């Protein structure tokens, strides 16, 4: 028996069949229940844990189909929506799947009403208000099958009460009435729900995890307990998948491996590629470092009873290994390297430098994740005056002694060190991009290349011009020459 606080009253959140037999019901005030049974034992409902449990159940149900949604619909009960189209034959037909689901759920101590129907609306209505156990609805007797269900099952909220007061108690009653008066009196939501129920209007399922385009699955008779045994299995699944992809001229761009634990938990590993690949060895290397024994080895619980391997595919031109040009082979090797580095260090840490046509120095280069392809834009841009080898992440202020108005620095202090300029070149004047929005307050920069007596070379700039503003302009160090 679970209790929670609703509208400052302690009410029954969920109660088992024994309690129901004694006359208790959901939503009853705790005081009333205690009046009936003074020795009532109860516990507080933990809604967050329940939510997490339902989510885990949803992930578990991915073994049946990639299209799964789980929700806590009403108090003390949750719904699992599974689109089994195309996957029921793997479990011996739709009813075989339903009975497998029921058996596995009851083995975990979860009571379930299972309904199979051609539409989502019908399945939800049947599961909520239909008979116990497994209900199957064939497409032929769609209307007759749902006619006896109460209007509450239509998921229309307040309008259900209004329908009942008007004497329309079942869906069959509503279906007999003309549509336009219904819409006028009870709103258009009722009509769209009816259409969705009968399959006249689509109702998409919002999947917990968006499925990828290709999928291979393996279910084991006995749970696997070691990573080595698992490796053999998922590598075999990967070989199947890549073989199928290669036969269609496709390659995997993303991979997702889901291991289903016997206790219902899942272990997931994902990897991405810089270029579509159907080489199982390469793809296996990307996935395997998450699934190797060691510090970060995954928690296998009491064993793994199945695995699902999904791939997002893209067209990959077939390559001949021996006849490939050297440059092509090199590109392939670099992509493989980027994949390996990226899958371990995070893709954003592997960068290529793109040129960007602007005079603002810090915007002239964009570091872009390397898996997105080769560096771009360098052919098109002009050679600006000489630039430093290293650029500071942000320009750092410096104290500078220089001639007014635009003489080069004679002496400057940066990072608490004093430097005497021995040679300088400049200014190179870079004006703000006045044609852009939001550059109103920016000042013109005068850049100077400065070399000190020891040969250290810096790139400094003065922000603003003398006489243009009230305060004197500030100096910054922006980069360092080698």
């Amino acid at each position, binding site marked *: 028996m679970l209790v929670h606080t609703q509208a400052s009253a302690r009410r029954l959140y969920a109660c088992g069949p024994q309690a129901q037999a004694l006359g208790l019901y959901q939503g009853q005030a705790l005081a009333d229940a205690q009046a009936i049974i003074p020795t009532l034992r109860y516990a507080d409902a933990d809604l967050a844990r329940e939510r997490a449990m339902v989510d885990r159940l949803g992930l578990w149900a991915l073994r049946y189909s990639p299209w799964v949604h789980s929700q806590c619909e009403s108090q003390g009960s949750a719904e699992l929506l599974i689109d089994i189209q195309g996957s029921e034959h793997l479990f011996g037909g739709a009813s075989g799947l339903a009975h497998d689901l029921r058996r596995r759920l009851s083995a975990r101590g979860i009571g379930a009403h299972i309904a199979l129907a051609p539409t989502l609306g019908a399945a939800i209505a049947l599961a909520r208000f239909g008979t116990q156990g497994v209900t199957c609805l064939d497409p032929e007797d769609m209307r007759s099958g749902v006619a006896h269900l109460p209007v509450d099952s239509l998921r229309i909220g307040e309008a259900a009460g209004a329908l009942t007061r008007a004497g329309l108690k079942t869906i069959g009653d509503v279906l007999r009435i003309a549509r336009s008066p219904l819409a006028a009196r009870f709103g258009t939501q009722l009509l769209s729900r009816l259409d969705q129920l009968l399959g006249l209007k689509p109702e998409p399922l919002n999947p917990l995890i968006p499925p990828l385009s290709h999928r291979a699955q393996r279910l084991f008779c006995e749970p696997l307990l070691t990573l080595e045994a698992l490796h053999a299995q998922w590598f075999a699944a990967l070989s199947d998948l890549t073989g199928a992809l290669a036969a269609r001229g496709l390659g995997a761009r993303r991979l997702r491996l889901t291991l289903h634990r016997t206790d219902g938990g899942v272990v997931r590993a994902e990897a991405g590629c810089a270029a579509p690949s159907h080489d199982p060895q390469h793809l296996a290397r990307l996935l395997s470092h998450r699934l190797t024994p060691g510090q970060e080895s995954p928690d296998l619980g009491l064993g793994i009873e199945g695995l699902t391997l999904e791939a997002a595919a893209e067209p990959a031109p077939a390559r001949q290994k021996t006849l490939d040009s050297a*440059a092509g082979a*090199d590109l392939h*090797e*670099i992509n*493989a*390297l*980027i994949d*390996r*580095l990226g899958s*371990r*260090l995070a893709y954003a*840490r*592997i*960068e*290529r*430098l793109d*040129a960007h046509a602007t*005079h603002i*120095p810090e915007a*002239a*280069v964009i*570091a872009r994740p*390397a898996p997105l392809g*080769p*560096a771009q834009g*360098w052919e098109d841009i002009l*050679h*600006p*005056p*000489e*630039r*430093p*080898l*290293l*650029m*500071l*992440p942000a320009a750092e202020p410096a104290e500078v002694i220089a001639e007014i108005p*635009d003489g080069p620095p004679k002496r400057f202090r940066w*990072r608490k060190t004093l430097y005497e*300029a*021995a*040679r*300088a*070149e*400049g*200014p*190179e*004047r*870079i*004006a703000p991009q006045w044609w852009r929005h939001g550059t109103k307050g920016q000042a013109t920069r005068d850049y100077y290349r400065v*070399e000190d*007596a*020891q*040969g*250290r*070379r810096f790139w400094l700039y003065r922000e603003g011009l003398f006489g243009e503003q009230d305060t004197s302009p500030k100096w910054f160090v922006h*980069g*360092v*020459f*080698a």
Partner: protein
Amino acid sequence: MIKERYSGDINHHGVDKHDSIAALRAQIAAQQGWAGHTQDKHLLGLAERAQHAAQEAGLHEVRPQTYRDGPAALGFACALAVLAGQTRKGAIIWIAQSISPHDFGLPYGPGLRDFGLDPRRIILVRTKDDAQALWAAEEGARAGVAALILQTAGPLGLVPARRLQLAAQARGSPLFCLRPVGGEGIGPALTRWRVASARAQSLPLTRWSIPAWHLALERQRRGPSIGAGLMEWNSDAHTLCLAAALGDRDAPAQQTAPLRKWA
């Protein structure tokens, strides 16, 4: 007692011992694929040695003399990478630690191009710590890239250094390891260079100033480790050359006229 007998052996068979050590060295060199290398490297000048180091597959250590010579050391490593990239094709992997406020920043594309390094060949790997950096360097070396520049922060043990060395030699990639100031040298490194910033002796003709460094070759495997000098980098011809002291005085500090307005 054992020690005594051992030293006695050396005294007694001193000449034979040297011969056999030389023979063993040659054998090891042949096994590890160094057989074809010239033994008379001490005859080469410092610039030629640097050129040679840039082509030699394996681990090369570059360290700045002081903290403020950090950019100079990086510049020299870049110069070596340019030289390596002339003969080997493929990408140049630059492994940098995630930026700390006392560093001198990250490589800047147009600056790399001015220096002679094509930014399109650069793949920049930003790692969190030395362990990641070493792993990335090993992976990169095993992929046979043109050259690697590796910036490390902490000490580098013998075992990881040896691993890097073998990985670099497996596919023939030179690996230039930039070390922090001070600390232990890398044992298995083929060469070790100490770099300090310097002013060029040549007059800059096409550029405002010429990159130049005081180089000291502190260690060289299978060769005498002497050598120091002022090296200049020609960013246009992509060559290292030993600066010749000019006959006349140093050029006075010059201030050129302002450039044309840029932007």
